């Protein structure tokens, strides 16, 4: 990051590294935590829900790719929207992005806790205490880690992500031999319309690629590699998800998978995985994968959420203190702590399904704004250099807006009430801060009315 004091020429991430940053954020918690819940809503058709979500995400991913290639800014989606819209719109974007990451954090923390206990079960150990306590512990540990030292490099992330993919590959390879295709017949046990809420719930699983845009300055040949990394990571993620969900439904059956909730993948693995030396049963390998993935995803969103708050602080959209590094630790400590508080509250108060829905809803809202930003930027800055251009403009971004809006509408009313509550709270915060002069330039910028340019009087 340039804010941390200049470009480091030695830190250069290849296309593979950049792609892995995106895949790492997307493959991980979502697949382990949300598969069971999605199957509960729509039966075997959950597979279709994941496939369609992949398609919907691609529209927005294309918009991201164009924006990232044209606007060299750290801060991801928030930075692009800040470039295109007035301060209040950018505030809404930042506020919802921030919340999405925090909520995703609590989702991953809860997923971690369930899978951690499940992992213990496989070895016959019943760990004491409520899952919530483990979730809280995980959040506190990772916040402390990120607050006290600078984050691990992108290369570390590459290794972690490859391990995750490898574990899932093992799951798929063994699972494909045991998959019974008749589990998918009938496909729509809960009606075709049940797809939409399932899509809404699982949409959050596909929103991690915008983390790629937050490391732009460290990527080699960024204006080519970032759009590629964004699109590649979405493609790989969709393929992996489809295989994993296919195997999970095909081996365990929709009924049981739905009953297993957030530990669904681990339970599916118990049915067909052979035993390995040292690790024990194959199921424990998958359970370990789930624990490992949820923790690394939690780490990613702790960084992601603090970066958004940090960027908003730098832009004076939140108090400037959020946009400063701590003098001793060299980390955006205030931004991290602020994010941690909301994550902890969400872990304790909000049930996991609501948490998933909320995160997805805010993702969808954010993506609508991003697609609209693309259209607006094309109109207002036609001569902007765009090394990557969205194909079939304006159809693609409009489809992105329509699909995201449609999915948003099928998220349940209670989630909407919570979401509107958070937005209203944001509005109050914004007004209070701008009235106190904590944010924004001091006073609205005075823009002179253009004076009529004196020309020779030809009218008379």
């Amino acid at each position: 990051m340039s804010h941390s004091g200049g470009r480091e020429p030695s830190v250069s991430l290849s296309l593979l590294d950049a792609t892995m940053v995106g895949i790492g954020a997307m493959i991980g918690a979502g697949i382990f935590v949300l598969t069971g819940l999605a199957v509960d809503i729509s039966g075997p058709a959950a597979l279709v829900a994941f496939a369609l979500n992949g398609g919907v995400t691609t529209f927005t991913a294309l918009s991201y790719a164009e924006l990232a290639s044209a606007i060299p800014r750290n801060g991801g989606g928030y930075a692009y929207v800040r470039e295109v819209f007035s301060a209040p719109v950018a505030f809404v974007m930042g506020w919802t992005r921030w919340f999405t990451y925090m909520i995703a954090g609590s989702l991953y923390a809860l997923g971690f806790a369930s899978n951690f206990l499940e992992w213990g079960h496989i070895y016959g150990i019943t760990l004491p205490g409520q899952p919530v306590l483990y979730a809280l512990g995980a959040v506190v540990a990772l916040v402390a880690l990120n607050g006290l030292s600078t984050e691990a490099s992108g290369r570390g992330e590459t290794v972690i992500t490859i391990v995750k993919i490898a574990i899932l590959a093992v799951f798929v390879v063994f699972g494909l031999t045991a998959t019974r295709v008749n589990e998918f017949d009938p496909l729509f046990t809960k009606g075709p319309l049940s797809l939409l809420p399932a899509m809404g719930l699982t949409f959050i699983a596909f929103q991690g690629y915008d983390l790629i845009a937050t490391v732009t300055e460290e990527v080699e040949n960024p204006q080519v590699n970032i759009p590629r990394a964004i699109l590649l990571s979405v493609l790989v993620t969709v393929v992996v998800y489809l295989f994993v969900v296919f195997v999970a439904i095909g081996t365990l059956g929709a009924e049981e998978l739905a009953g297993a909730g957030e530990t669904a993948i681990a339970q599916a693995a118990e049915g067909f995985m052979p035993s390995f030396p040292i690790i024990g049963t194959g199921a424990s390998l998958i359970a370990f994968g789930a624990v490992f993935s949820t923790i690394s995803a939690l780490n990613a969103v702790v960084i992601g959420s603090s970066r958004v708050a940090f960027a908003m602080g730098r832009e004076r959209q939140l108090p400037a203190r959020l946009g400063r590094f701590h003098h001793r630790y060299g980390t955006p400590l205030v931004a991290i702590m602020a994010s941690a508080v909301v994550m902890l509250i969400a872990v304790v108060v909000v049930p996991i399904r609501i948490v998933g829905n909320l995160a997805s809803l805010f993702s969808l809202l954010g993506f609508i704004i991003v697609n609209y930003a693309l259209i607006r930027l094309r109109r207002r800055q036609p001569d902007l250099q765009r090394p990557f251009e969205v194909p079939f403009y304006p159809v693609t971004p409009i489809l992105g807006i329509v699909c995201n809006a449609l999915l948003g509408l099928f998220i349940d009313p209670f989630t909407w009430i919570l979401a509107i509550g958070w937005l209203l709270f944001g509005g109050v915060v914004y007004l209070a801060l701008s009235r106190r002069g904590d944010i924004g330039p001091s006073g609205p910028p005075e823009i002179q009315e253009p004076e009529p340019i004196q020309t020779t009087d030809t009218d008379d």
Partner: protein
Amino acid sequence: MPKPVTQDLRVIIGGGGEMGVRTAELLSDRGHDVVIVESDPDRCNELSEKYVATIIEGDASRPEKLRQAQPERSDVVAALTDDETTNFAICMAAQRMSDARTVMRINETPDELYEEFVDGLVFPERLGARAATNEIEVSGVRTIEDIGGNVEVVEVEVADDAPVAGKRLDEVRLPRGSLIIVDYHGNRLGGPDTLLEAGHRYVLAVESNVADEVMNLFRG
């Protein structure tokens, strides 16, 4: 009125030549957001590969192109093309559209009245002359930067028979208004145990009224 300086600036640079790009790179390294307006399409492609700024293709002195860079949202508009008239036009247009600070590159002895129209002047030839002087007068003293006002940052080589040669900094008394910043190799900031060795170079900040005295101590 110029806006108060916020933490991160949004800067528009008119002209993506060497000067515009180097400026953009320095600004980007310091965390600012930069937009470059450049008229040559080939040059635009090159700039875009550098990925330090948003690039708008077009002549910045045309209001329609300048507007795409959004001066009304920017803190500074810097006109850095090699054409003085173009630069003046960019600054004037920018002032009509916004309250951004304007910085203009000039090529000749500045017109006395420029200061009434633009907020800052850049005169590369004068900076170049200083660099040339430094290169010509290889040993001894070289100016690194005028910090405006009467403080200058200079690099001085300690002469063999200079009063301070071979002394530690806590053994010498530099005049008030001078400060050793760093030794030439850039390894250490000045402190009480800094040794002033003959033949080595040090970077100093000096107020102009004590510059003589400091030169005396270092050069003998």
